């Protein structure tokens, strides 16, 4: 377990550093809030709509789903890559088959325009 103790300490420091700076800033800063200052930013006029009226393109969802799929694929690449010299040609062919199947999906996504933005 010893190798994780530096990580634990570092994480604690990394967590406490923002807390300390934010608290420090709280002590030294000035402040005179008023209603106009607390309005959401819009170029000097009152905001005609709130943030949550905005509708998003479905593409953001598609990008996120495709990301999850490809992310799982890259996860399979990692243990394969570090053992590549031991797995030799057999492992290489294995991975080529894996990628070839996924290539079908990639081409499909491309042809259906899932990778286009506009």
């Amino acid at each position, binding site marked *: 377990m010893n190798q994780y103790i530096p990580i634990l300490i570092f994480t604690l420091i990394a967590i406490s550093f923002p807390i300390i700076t934010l608290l420090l800033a709280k002590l030294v800063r000035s402040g005179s809030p008023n209603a106009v200052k607390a309005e959401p930013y819009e170029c000097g006029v009152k905001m005609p709509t709130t943030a949550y009226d905005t509708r998003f393109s479905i593409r953001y969802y598609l990008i996120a789903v495709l*990301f999850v799929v490809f*992310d799982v694929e890259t996860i399979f690449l990692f*243990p394969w890559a570090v053992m590549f010299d031991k797995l030799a040609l057999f492992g290489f062919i294995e991975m080529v088959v894996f990628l070839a199947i996924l290539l079908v999906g990639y081409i499909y996504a491309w042809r259906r325009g899932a990778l286009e933005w506009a």
Partner: protein
Amino acid sequence: MAFLSAHFVAIVFYVLAVLAVAGGVGVITFKNPVHSALSLLGTFLMVAGLFVLRHAEFLGAVQLLVYAGGIMVLFLFVIMLVNVRRLSPDAAFLSRRAPLAVLSGVVFGALIAFGVLAGSLGHPGGGATALQMVQGHVMGNTEAVGWTLYRHFLVPFEIVSVVLLVAMIGAIIFGRKDAGLEGRGGRMEP
């Protein structure tokens, strides 16, 4: 101090486990869906910590990369996409379905308990480095996963790619313009 160092692993385990369960409770008790999603994220983090505690570093990293980095981002996108601030929670939902929920919870819990018991009876012990052995040498968890996966589980590995392919095609079909998800006159905000 002596107690702390003697029971270090156990203490860390209980802290992580309690926080993980607390995150799970948060998921179903928070009113705001974004808060629920972030609570689930906390649970994923703690579970990653538990994996690392059992010397399954690769699984811990995968937990963060795939669940925290991918799936939760997807959840958050969907929550923002459907504009949930406008949705009012259906108060009757829980009370009507409560018996069903309790039943499925109990069944699922029993299945997990059975799995854990069967697993621990089947493979007693194993030592701290059991998950890091490659051909009798201690190398590392990722190397051990790679060696086992690509030597002994060839067919499941190739089937994973087919599953991923199906998931990809399904997502693209759901997200199509003509699938009616993007209504007529719907503004496209880049």
